[in-house]
């Protein structure tokens, strides 16, 4: 193993650069150094003008997603040792989002989509806290637990060809979040979320590429969630037909 590694970073300064261009930095190689730590090294020792996001450095805040050799990954959960043999790696801002500067992507669209699916519990009758908790067995918790592990890192959006084609698609994490609440035994709000799931921008836009689940650093499996959303959407459609047939109103 050589004692340093070449990190090529796509630099882009708005108003200054026409398009991103790669800049090379040589970073001393140590096996337990993460890509994020390498960026911190570059910033402290080589080039303080480099811009990127980070905070927790323990794979839970979701800040540090970047394209690493073309694949969306968390900088703090990817280690230089993986690239030691090749002696180089390439970084750029997350695909499918506009670049704000250097490795910083503009994720506003993603934030809007999260909000669209109404990710909060709805109770048909509000129970006062003095009456205690809603019972939920471990099995009921298990039904949505995996889908509640999303750290909103946006890697799945960078992986999603549909979102890349048209960013009005709600995308893997937002659709997963909708399912997370729909599956929660305490929630009565699924009808209200159905409109978003069924809409043009909803589950049907997904062509089941499945790359989102591959890149997810938290094993959320958004592709599975989206597909279960399709099933729910179909059932919802069927139920609505039934209700209409019985003379009830569409919900």
């Amino acid at each position, binding site marked *: 193993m050589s004692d340093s590694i070449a990190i090529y970073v796509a630099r882009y*300064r*708005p*108003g*200054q650069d026409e398009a991103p261009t790669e800049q090379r930095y040589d970073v001393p190689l140590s096996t*337990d150094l993460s890509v994020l730590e390498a960026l911190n090294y570059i*910033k*402290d*020792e080589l*080039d*303080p*003008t480099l*811009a*990127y*996001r*980070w*905070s*927790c*450095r*323990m*794979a*839970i*805040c*979701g*800040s540090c997603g970047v394209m690493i050799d073309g694949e969306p990954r968390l900088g703090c*959960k990817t280690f230089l040792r993986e690239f030691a043999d090749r002696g180089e790696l390439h970084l750029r801002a997350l695909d499918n989002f506009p670049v*704000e*500067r*250097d490795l*910083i992507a*503009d994720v506003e669209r993603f*934030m809007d989509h*999260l*909000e669209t699916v*109404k*990710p*909060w*519990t709805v*109770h048909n009758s509000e*129970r006062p*806290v*003095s009456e*205690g*908790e*809603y*019972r*939920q*067995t*471990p099995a*009921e*918790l298990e039904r*949505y637990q995996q889908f*509640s*592990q999303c*750290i*909103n890192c946006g890697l799945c959006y960078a992986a999603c060809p549909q979102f890349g084609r048209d960013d009005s698609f709600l995308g893997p994490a937002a659709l997963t*979040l909708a399912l997370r*609440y729909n599956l*929660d035994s*305490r*929630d009565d709000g699924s009808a209200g979320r159905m409109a978003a799931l069924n809409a043009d921008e909803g589950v049907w836009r997904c062509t089941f590429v499945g790359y989102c689940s591959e890149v997810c650093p938290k094993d959320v499996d958004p592709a599975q969630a989206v597909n279960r959303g399709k099933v729910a959407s179909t059932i919802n459609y069927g139920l609505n037909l039934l209700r209409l047939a019985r003379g009830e109103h569409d919900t």
Partner: protein
Amino acid sequence: MRQERADIVIIGGGGAGLRAAIAAAEADPSLDIALVSKVYPMRSHTVAAEGGCAGVVQDHDSLAHHFDDTVSGGDWLCDQDVVDYFVRHATEENLRLEHWGCPWSRRPDGRVNVRAFGGMKIERTWFAADKTGFHILHTLFQTSLKFPSIRRYDELFCTDLLVADGQCGGVQGIHMATGETVALLAPAVIIATGGAARVYRYNTNGGIVTGDGMAMAYRQGVPLRDMEFVQYHPTGLPGSGILITEAARGEGGVLTNSEGYRYLQDYGLGPETPLGAPQNKTMELGPRDKVSQAFWHESQAGRTLSSPRGEAVNLDLRHLGEARINERLPFIRELARTYIDVDPVHEAIPVRPTAHYTMGGIQTDGRTATVMPGLFAVGECASVGLHGANRLGSNSLAELSVFGRVAGEEAAALARSGSTPPEAALLGEARDNAARWEALRGARGTERLADLRNAMAEAMEEGVGIQRMPGAMEKTAATLRELRERYGHLRLEDDSLAFNTEWLSAIELGFLLDVAQAMTAAALARRESRGSHQRPEDYPTRDDAGYLKHSLAHYRRADAPEVAWQDVNITRSRPGERLYGGAARAKADADAKEEAEP
């Protein structure tokens, strides 16, 4: 400069800020609430909290027990009226989170489960596996989205409070994407900016935890209280400082030294408990100050292990077995595997104490009001009087909800009746501040930012760490003075406006230095040992006659901070001896006997 108005401005989108925003929105939907954060709210460091959130639920537990554990855990420096309010409202707030969808771990019958935690006599720590803070934060963030009156200002970096005639009338900040200055005026401002453990070299905190709000208030004359009390968490990963939650010990993990010996029994926490049968307030479930101090003694005695990233002891979970580790501590397993290539199912995890939590902060009363009209503070940035000289794990997440709600409601009440100070004066201030920050951007001095930051962090470890020696403390104070001076001669390479993170880091370093100075001055002034503040060489014992008092650090610009004192509110628990392990049980038995024979 962009000017905007709101009824309430909240700086901080962590647990405390979000809870305050929701409380204000519920109190009065007509109020316009600005929620400002330098990161998207769900990136706030509350996200990293692992272990759990306190609240009495079991029949054999009581509010009095939670009160006693908190007050004795805090070495009697807690304001007891505040602790009283806290323990009475913690459970209710945990339940509210439950109603909002927080995925608390459950018992087979569907009720909320609780686990053991350090310094707690009875299990009362609610948990969501070992990602409690993550789930609380996402629940609060997602719930906040349903209130149209909460307007978010994401990635707006606050630099100053706007104050005129001694009254707070807003905040100003830098819009990170464009570098534009924003002045946000409001009759009520809540600071909820979190802790400051990034003043230390080895810490469990995220890069954003830089004491900004503390420094902003401090610079405006609001005192920082009890800043000498910094908690070292006993179990961080060596090198990175990444936290291995206390829940690992709550579930039965044990600490051993280089001889494989469970050394905590030598430090007043024994007798040794059998493997797999942890006992509350005993051995590994002692309070954090004592457990961290024991590490220091072991290190002095040469009984620590050397790991590739520094000295450590072993945290052994192997006897818990894979199933329990996966159920209760999945994130710990992921962290240990990812960051040090250790699978706790098969190997012990090397750990060491790392700076973790600031017990002190912006002085507030029990209703989160600071001494400055119009200004509130809540969460880790504040000192509401709850934690005293040592915080008990799982009390701080509960603090976010209990007092976040209070702050939101108080601010809402003020916003309805209050008025902002004269606008012209506030905007004049804002322009002066902006000119100062402008001068810092691309500053043409000689000093490197990273050098100053590293020097500060090393100095804090040296002088104001687990054990504080008089010479080392003085030296740290001198180093910080020198760094202050050098900070005036920074050289910044980046003079651009869009996402100039070098510029923002330089502003953060200024905040950190102020906070570090306040910590050091208060540590020097407190001539006793209490809780997390230990002076084994010159003042090895607690001195209630002299120091049963809160310290108040006042900002004095270039001069060293001035330290004043404030009485502690004591209602029903007189200072006593802090007993853990067998000693505590013996005392309890003796007390029970005394009560039985009047």
